[in-house]
């Protein structure tokens, strides 16, 4: 960052006269308070090229509008300097669902307005009015009710129309027929000066159903494909060395086999290739699940999406764009995700049984009354009453109300569930397949012990470590910050490629260096006042792995490890935990394993974090990813759990099962109420007052029953 341009005080103006600005979004889990908002918005505003930064505290996101010249990595680095770990988030993944949810909320608001106003008149009519006032009130109700039905009913009418067009039926068909018939009948009653108008019933029905639909839409998170994010992982381009020895920048999709790339330290590779010059270490954890960075010397194959940690190297491209290993993973994910979309949700399964039954019932009562000698008008009134009474008011709320309450309770426990169907599938899981690196373990090397370091050494170590993006430095910095160490003022910090961080503190040279002799374990030497102290690192297991596995087992889930790491690394963990493990699995192997288990009738819960887990996460019956996972995995998974504990996985299964129990109870209540009310409707005893009482009564019952989940889930997690 150069400081030639002074920080722009009014950011909006600079956006106009510089290059066109683009928007980037970042997930920043550390935003907690007003101080954080101020710090980030002010701090990022001072970065040259940033037009504006806006924090969303509820979503823990920062939206930055900035010049194209500024890339996301730089902004993440700026956020880190401000003291916040940030991850790039996909470009407004919520946009599409947002529109849908907003439309439903507007329809709900209109229905609520109509319901309350019509009810004012209905109550007067029910408590007894003379015919003239009743007629007037019916007219006013019609005046409010018809526009409200037209506006708020659209989501149902549209969906019912779609279903009928393809000669199928869904829950929306009886709803639409019921609402339209009730409105039509009421209009006729009003014109004829009759006694009963059902405007309140029709609108109330819409209101309750829209409430259920809105809750469901709010649960639906972002699109789950994650493929765009996966391809975004790949370096966007590379410096290619021409025949005359000059370097020029080439976009990733224009790279061709045979070109020679110059890959700088810290850069992501843009294509698969073979190292031709230079020695370095490559971080392949995200791609393969290997925990230790791998050395790369001339002749070694390196893949797009991996990160060069050490020295600059020259790489001859062997496969580019669509032929890279990472593009293969994207294809696998695409295919795997399609099988998931065939899952039929519990509400739809219920509707398939319910809708034909309701129609038959209404039609039969219409015919029976005609045969019994009633007029067409009378028979139609009764058929309408049957449709209104059976209309799945409580059924529409039965599933979403329970799921929203459960998802809310889980969110407070650090687990984000993306949609209702995820909870349904989670409840069915009977096996759990765990990735090792980053899932069972924390996924980043942490110092085994810091006991041998004095306060001064610790402060210097933090001062050095926080300037580097090397995994060891980050692990060390994280551990030191966790112990409340304040960084020492280390000057002239520079990263000596391949050997470590060097700087000056109080006039003396200090350094974090690679051990001089090669060791099996990960380690760095801290050099302070001429003495070297060895700090060893290990990718430690999450603190509550054993308890979580026990909890899963208690719920009847068999666990196994599927890892892309080396056999020796996986074996140690597997023996320690007593789990069956498969090592050195490629992404396709994990997916194939899942398919074999599925073919045997098992419903597998996949928990993984790396890019290599992407296809498995997308293809598993249900999947969860830790918060530290790649954006790809977070998008492919059905849920994300944050923090260092693994327990949310077990809690999620427990709460999901409790949710399904409540959903079944809700169904039983809704159906039970129908069993009581339908005979009344068929016999012609249902007045608008009875319909209104029955409808709101059963809905309240269902919502009340669902609220019990909040307490149950809270108790469960303690």
């Amino acid at each position, binding site marked *: 960052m150069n400081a030639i341009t002074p920080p722009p005080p009014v950011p909006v103006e600079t956006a106009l006269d510089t290059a066109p600005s683009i928007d980037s979004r970042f997930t920043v889990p550390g935003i907690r*308070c007003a101080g954080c*908002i*101020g710090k980030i918005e002010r701090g990022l505003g001072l970065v040259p090229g940033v037009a504006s930064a806006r924090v*969303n*505290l509820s979503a823990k996101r920062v939206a930055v509008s900035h010049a194209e010249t500024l890339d996301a990595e730089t902004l993440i680095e700026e956020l880190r300097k401000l003291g916040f770990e940030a991850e790039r988030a996909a470009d407004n993944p919520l946009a599409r669902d947002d529109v849908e949810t907003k439309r439903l909320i507007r329809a709900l608001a209109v229905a609520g307005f109509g319901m309350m*106003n019509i009810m004012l008149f209905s109550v007067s009519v029910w408590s007894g009015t003379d015919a003239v006032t009743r007629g007037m009130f019916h007219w006013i109700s019609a005046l409010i009710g018809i526009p409200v039905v037209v506006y708020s009913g659209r989501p149902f009418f549209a969906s019912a129309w779609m279903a009928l067009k393809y000669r199928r039926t869904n829950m929306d068909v009886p709803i639409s027929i019921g609402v339209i018939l009730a409105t039509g009948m009421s209009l006729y009653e009003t014109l004829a000066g009759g006694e009963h108008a059902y405007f309140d019933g029709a609108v109330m029905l819409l209101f309750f159903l829209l409430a259920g639909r809105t809750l469901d839409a709010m649960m639906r998170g972002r699109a789950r494909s994650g493929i765009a994010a996966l391809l975004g992982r790949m370096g966007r381009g590379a410096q290619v060395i021409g025949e005359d020895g000059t370097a020029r920048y080439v976009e990733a999709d224009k790279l061709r086999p045979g070109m020679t790339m110059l890959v700088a330290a810290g850069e992501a590779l843009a294509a698969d290739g073979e190292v031709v010059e230079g020695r370095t270490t490559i971080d392949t954890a995200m791609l393969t699940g290997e925990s230790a960075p791998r050395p790369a010397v001339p002749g070694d194959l390196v893949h797009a999406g991996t990160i060069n940690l050490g020295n600059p190297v020259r790489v001859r491209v062997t496969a580019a764009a669509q032929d890279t290993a990472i593009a293969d993973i994207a294809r696998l994910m695409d295919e795997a995700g399609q099988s998931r979309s065939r899952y039929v949700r519990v509400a739809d399964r219920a509707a398939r049984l319910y809708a034909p039954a309701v129609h038959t019932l209404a039609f039969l009562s219409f015919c029976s009354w005609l045969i019994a000698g009633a007029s067409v008008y009378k028979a139609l009134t009764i058929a309408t009453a049957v449709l209104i009474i059976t209309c799945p008011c409580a059924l529409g709320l039965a599933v979403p109300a329970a799921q929203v309450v459960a998802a809310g309770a889980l969110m407070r426990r650090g687990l984000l569930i993306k949609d209702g169907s995820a909870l349904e599938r989670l409840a069915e899981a009977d096996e759990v397949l765990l990735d090792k690196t980053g899932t069972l373990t924390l996924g980043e090397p942490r110092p085994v012990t810091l006991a041998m370091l004095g306060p001064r050494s610790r402060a210097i170590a933090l001062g050095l470590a926080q300037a580097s993006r090397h995994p060891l430095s980050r692990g060390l910095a994280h551990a030191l910050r966790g112990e409340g160490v304040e960084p020492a003022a280390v000057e002239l910090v520079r990263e000596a490629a391949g050997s470590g961080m060097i700087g000056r503190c109080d006039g003396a040279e200090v350094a974090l260096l690679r051990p001089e002799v090669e060791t099996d374990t990960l380690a760095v030497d801290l050099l302070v006042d001429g003495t070297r102290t060895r700090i060893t690192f290990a990718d430690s297991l999450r603190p509550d792995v054993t308890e979580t596995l026990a909890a899963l087992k208690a719920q009847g889930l068999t666990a196994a490890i599927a890892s892309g790491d080396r056999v020796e690394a996986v074996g140690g963990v597997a023996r320690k935990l007593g789990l069956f493990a498969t090592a050195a699995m490629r992404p396709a192997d994990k997916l194939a394993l899942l398919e074999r288990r599925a073919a045997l009738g098992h419903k597998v819960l996949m928990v993984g974090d790396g890019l290599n887990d992407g296809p498995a996460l997308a293809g598993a019956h249900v999947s969860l990813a830790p918060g530290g996972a790649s954006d790809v995995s977070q998008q492919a998974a059905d849920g994300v759990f944050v923090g260092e504990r693994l327990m949310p996985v077990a809690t999620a299964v427990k709460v999901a099962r409790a949710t399904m129990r409540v959903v079944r109870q809700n169904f039983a209540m809704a159906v039970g109420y129908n069993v009581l009310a339908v005979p009344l409707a068929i016999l012609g005893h249902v007045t608008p007052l009875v319909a209104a009482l029955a409808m709101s009564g059963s809905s309240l019952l269902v919502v009340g029953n669902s609220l019990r989940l909040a307490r149950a889930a809270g108790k469960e997690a303690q």
Partner: protein
Amino acid sequence: MTILGFMIPLSLAMGLCALGTFFWTMRSGQYEDMDGAANRILIDEDAP
């Protein structure tokens, strides 16, 4: 009963006002970040 001719339109107008206000608040994104809005009041605005 003539009072109804006045009261009913009035109550409907008030209801419509509330509905309109709700639509406006939604369109202007006031429900996007509820926690943020609650916390922003605590930020000092002494910066230019």
